[in-house]
């Protein structure tokens, strides 16, 4: 890849921060002080860094899947539903086999999460391939259904009686993801995510499957002409992305909350899309992009506490970054979509 996408992404982030600085100034605060607090709140101590890395973990896993999908021009925006069902399956597995040994149970639960996410994405792919409904609409609609399935489960068999909030009971300790650094919240998920990103990079650029993804993204007729089955590649990349999103949901449940909570994945799927775009659909670049989003969100609350600049500013920065990157991609890619 040339240096151009990197320049575009950096420029988009810089522009988003500049516009947001204006907003902060309009609100009567000093933008530099606010951004200083944002930095302090995300990188200021090992504890903050641990929180930010945990925050980034599901974004990395889901974002890399979205990047692979978009590469193949499969516009999968169903991350939210896939994450939700991945978390549900992981919680179910952990509650079903609480006696399993401490090494086996998280692995089982992560596997269940991957399977559930992949199945949900696979359902979207099948509807797309069999009935010709655009995958954006299918994945978008299935997001709502997936999130509601979690709510339904929490109201029923998985819910904690008398909790006052739709959540499952605390999972057995054996199911929790081990911590990476003692005395911090940092769990092993970030290692899993980083390895996934590197593997995805090699998958895309060094394997026949990656080649099929890239050819399909360049031109579906060319792919068919070259003997690559567009539907099969479509289904594979969706299953892969869904599985990764499912793992993201499982990691969130097993590593952060230790239980299934209603709405635990709210906004994750759309953030993953933003991260994939910011990474110019390049898996290895998902690492800095995902970490950026994680640190940004972690610093936001600290910024609000320290200088009174409201934390939703972060969503403004994220939204603006997406619009700028998309505009730049549209300009440079001419007739291409995403």
């Amino acid at each position: 890849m040339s240096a151009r996408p990197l320049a575009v992404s950096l420029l988009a982030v810089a522009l988003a921060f500049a516009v947001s600085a204006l907003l902060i100034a309009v609100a009567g605060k000093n933008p530099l002080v606010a951004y200083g607090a944002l930095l302090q709140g995300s990188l200021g101590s090992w504890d903050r860094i641990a929180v930010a890395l945990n925050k980034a973990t599901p974004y990395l896993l889901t974002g890399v899947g979205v990047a692979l999908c978009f590469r193949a021009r499969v516009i999968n925006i169903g991350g939210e539903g896939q994450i939700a069902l991945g978390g549900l399956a992981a919680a179910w597995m952990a509650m079903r086999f609480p006696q399993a040994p401490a090494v086996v149970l998280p692995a089982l639960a992560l596997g269940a999460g991957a399977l559930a996410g992949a199945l949900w994405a696979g359902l979207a792919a099948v509807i797309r391939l069999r009935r010709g409904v655009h995958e954006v609409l299918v994945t978008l609609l299935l997001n709502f259904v997936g999130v509601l399935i979690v709510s339904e489960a929490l109201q029923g068999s998985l819910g904690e009686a008398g909790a006052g909030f739709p959540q499952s009971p605390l999972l057995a300790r054996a199911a929790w993801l081990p911590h990476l650094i003692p005395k911090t919240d940092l769990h092993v998920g970030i290692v899993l995510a980083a390895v996934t990103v590197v593997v995805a990079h090699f998958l895309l650029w060094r394997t026949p499957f990656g080649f099929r993804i890239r050819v399909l993204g360049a031109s579906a007729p060319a792919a068919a002409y070259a003997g690559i089955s567009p539907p099969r590649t479509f289904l594979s990349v969706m299953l892969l992305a869904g599985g990764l999103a499912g793992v993201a949901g499982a990691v969130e449940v097993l590593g952060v909350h230790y239980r299934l909570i209603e709405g635990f994945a709210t906004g994750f799927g759309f953030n993953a899309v933003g991260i994939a775009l910011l990474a110019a659909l390049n898996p290895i670049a998902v690492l800095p992009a995902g970490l950026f989003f994680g640190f940004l969100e972690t610093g936001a609350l600290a910024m609000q506490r320290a200088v009174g600049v409201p934390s939703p500013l972060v969503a403004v920065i994220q939204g603006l970054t997406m619009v700028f990157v998309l505009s730049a991609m549209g300009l440079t890619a001419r007739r291409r979509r995403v």
Partner: protein
Amino acid sequence: MTDAFVEFLAATVRIASPLLFAALGGILSERAGVFAVGLEGMMLAGAFAGVVATYGTGMVLAGLLASIAGGMMVAAVVAVATTRFRADQMVTGLAVNVLALGLTSFLLRGFGARGEAPTIRVTTLPSLPVPWLADLPLVGPVLFRQPALTYLAVALTVIVFVFLVRTRPGLTLRAVGENPTAVFAVGGNPARVRVIAVVAAGALAGLAGAVLSLQQVGTFTDGMTHGRGYLALAAIIVGRWMPGGALVGCLVFGAADALQLRVQAIHLPVSSYVIQMLPYIVSLAVLAGLGRTARMPAAIGAPFVRERR
């Protein structure tokens, strides 16, 4: 007819009206060839601007105009990004939804001390019974004792239909959604038509937000549209990109929502969550049923690029 049933039908109409505004706007946008994924953000901006302006000026009319302007501002971002910069329409829609959610929540806290969200209360729009008609049995309480914006939504359904199907600009708009190159060939300006259509969609979606904040709740809370913009998108699909069809879709979804709120009271054997899934599953079923024969606007999603010679 029991009172509960009449109240259920009235609630259906009430819940359907914000969806209808947004769906009508979405039809204008999508018929011109631009996916209306950004409806959610436009609604949210409209809901916010309406409450702030009504609170600030004490005039509902100012609030409604601000709602329209708020929706149009978000729509303008979509319009410029998708036409001038040829950004992907659907993902741009998602992006402005994130942006609008962040911006409204940020600005709301801008009005509070030390970054906390204040509660801004305004009086909700009263219901306006239509003389004589309101006293009819059943249809009276269901249709003719509604607040002003609900009547406006129904009127706009007819207006948008007539505009699309019976007027010259409406024909041009649809032509841009089917074959922008042909419109360009006969001297039209597809990019401009799309910008106007998207901004008009923003105005209607802004009004949809006003229904929520000014007519139903009387305040603004973070993300108060709760996915209704996406639901409107689904209603457009169910209604096959026609105003009348979208009206039916909105009423069906409104009924599902009204039912969901009453599940416990009427001892239904299903949970409210299952009923909440219905609109999305119905939309998927309709889409899958339409399948490859779906009469989606042919050029939807494709940026218009002038041929260079």
